[in-house]
């Protein structure tokens, strides 16, 4: 089959690889009909995620059709149309059973790497480094889905892929980002990053009762999308000082909750950004925590930071005094897709949510290298690419 393989920083290629096979009883093989490039795939593309190896198939947001099931899977049959969550959960461990699927104990066969780095093992994610399991990713014609009897969501045949694909990753990530804010009536929520996850976080924040949502980005087309589809007020941080603007827009208080939908490759302005970029290039820090810092200073006293952007390692120069003295609450983590997908599917079926607006590009799988390039460089107003195998 054809698959998108990582070959080094800023070098992905479409290669011929063997088809996946059933390896365990609870496996299924899915023929992929649509797969997206997630913003967090750019961290891999750029070479910022450790333990990605040359030749790894990447990608974790996907849907398709069941073509083979293992003998331990009796709730799926060949021909079922399904959306698969990007994080892999066994359904049996303490964490899965308490709806914390991204903290699954049993899905990562290379857990010792994480145990050394993080002290514990979290769930595996398709195509997202060997530290997170080393599973082959979704930007391919077929994929092996482990523990396919749990988490996988069957979807009706009558809606187009673009309406359903994002319940695999981007929508539950945004939704969980808003849920972690514990939004109260009248709250103002600020969202850093207006990619797909940021957009869905804003929409979710309104659904949960936020009175005002403020979007922060530097690309006009993204801010335009946030205004139009997510009904957000916007700040372009290259034009105004985001911290001061946020204060002015919240009566001098600061937002009640702040969502980081950017992660480890955040861009800032000025000296501090140069400091981060340099340290990251020299591998003296793994992550650029610009958004984290800004959120800690901008948030109102007693407010909440909800961190959905991906961080992989160490961050530097964190204004911890601000967080401590202001009594901030930090909530974060990879999303628990399996917890939210049925709910989100129902919203789509009920006509309460149409996520297809985020798709700016639809390209054949063969054009993945071009897609990564324009997405990374924010060329051609690229916000979300769907690849068609």
């Amino acid at each position, binding site marked *: 089959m054809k698959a998108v393989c990582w070959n080094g920083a800023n070098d992905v290629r479409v*290669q011929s690889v063997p*088809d996946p096979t059933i*390896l365990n009883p609870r496996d299924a093989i899915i023929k992929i009909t649509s797969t997206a490039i997630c913003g967090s795939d750019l961290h891999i593309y750029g070479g910022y995620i450790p333990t990605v190896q040359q*030749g790894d*198939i990447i990608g974790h947001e996907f849907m398709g059709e069941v073509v083979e099931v293992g003998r331990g899977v009796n709730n799926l049959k060949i021909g079922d149309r399904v959306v698969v969550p990007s994080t892999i959960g*066994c359904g*049996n461990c303490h964490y899965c059973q308490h709806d914390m699927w991204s903290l699954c104990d049993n899905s990562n066969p290379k857990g010792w790497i994480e145990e050394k780095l993080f002290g514990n093992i979290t769930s595996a994610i398709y195509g997202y480094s060997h530290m997170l*399991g080393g599973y082959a990713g979704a930007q391919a014609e077929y994929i*092996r889905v482990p*523990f396919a009897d749990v988490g996988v969501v069957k979807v009706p045949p009558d809606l187009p892929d673009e309406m359903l694909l994002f319940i695999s990753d981007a929508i539950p990530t945004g939704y969980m980002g808003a849920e972690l804010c514990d939004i109260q009536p009248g709250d103002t929520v600020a969202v850093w990053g207006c990619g797909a996850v940021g957009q869905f976080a804003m929409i979710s924040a309104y659904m949960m009762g936020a009175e005002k949502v403020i979007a922060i980005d530097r690309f006009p087309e993204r801010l335009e999308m946030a205004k139009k589809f997510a009904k957000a007020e916007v700040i372009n941080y290259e034009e105004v000082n985001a911290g001061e603007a946020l204060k002015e827009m919240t009566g001098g208080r600061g937002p009640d909750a702040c969502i980081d939908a950017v992660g480890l490759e955040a861009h800032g302005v000025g000296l501090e950004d140069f400091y981060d970029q340099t340290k990251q290039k020299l591998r003296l820090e793994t992550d650029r925590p610009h958004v984290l810092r800004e959120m800690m200073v901008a948030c109102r006293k007693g407010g909440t930071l909800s961190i959905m952007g991906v961080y992989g390692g160490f961050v530097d120069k964190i204004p911890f005094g601000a967080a401590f003295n202001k009594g901030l609450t930090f909530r974060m983590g990879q999303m628990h897709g399996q917890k939210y997908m049925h709910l989100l599917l129902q919203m789509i079926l009920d006509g309460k949510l149409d996520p297809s607006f985020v798709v700016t590009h639809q390209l054949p799988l063969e054009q993945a290298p071009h897609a990564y390039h324009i997405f990374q460089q924010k060329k051609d107003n690229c916000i979300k690419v769907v690849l068609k195998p």
Partner: protein
Amino acid sequence: MTSTSGDKLSTSQTEASEVERWASLIGGGAMVLMGLRQGSLRGALTALAGGGLIYQGATKQSTIQQAQEAIGINQPIKVEKTVTINKPADELYRYWHNFENLPTFMKHLKSVNVYNEKRSHWIANAPLGNSVEWDADILEDRENEFISWASVEGADVDNSGFVRFKKAPGDRGTEVKVVLEYNPPGGALAATVAKLFGEEPEQQIGDELRRFKMLMEAGEIATTEGQPSGRS
């Protein structure tokens, strides 16, 4: 105690705290402490099971140590590791108690044959396609709680171990603790056996316990071996 060698126990302070920990995890008692002062798990387990064999266990250990020192190897591999499994103790105990099940999750074992209630025959994978074998006896067996075993006289590798099952607080299942000790013998086998667990025995035992957990909780062991990639 992490993967450590006898010579790290040199200060009396370390020794005291080690003894305390080992005593508490096995169950206490002066006999056990005597066994542990010799730094031998086998001694402790034997003491626990029979009492009368402590002296022999301790002497044997010191003989091995003398031999090891003579050929420059005094690195018994001693590891302990605990994992919490979301299953009741009796289920886990039952699976473990049939030693023939151990190779399903312990990659370093090729096979275990159970002869009778007490004795079993173990074959372990050694580097370069070699294998090492020994007979082992169960020393103590407390249903749903504790199993200890040790190799018998004349084993390729003198080794001993125990597994303990203890209810975790709340609804978290069972805490499963494993302690293993392998004493590399003298002679040509020594180097081979020293590599039984690779560079990091602690990690390997951890991996094996994690596979046990996967098998017990999820019914299968997560793997990525045999999946496609773009590596040629």
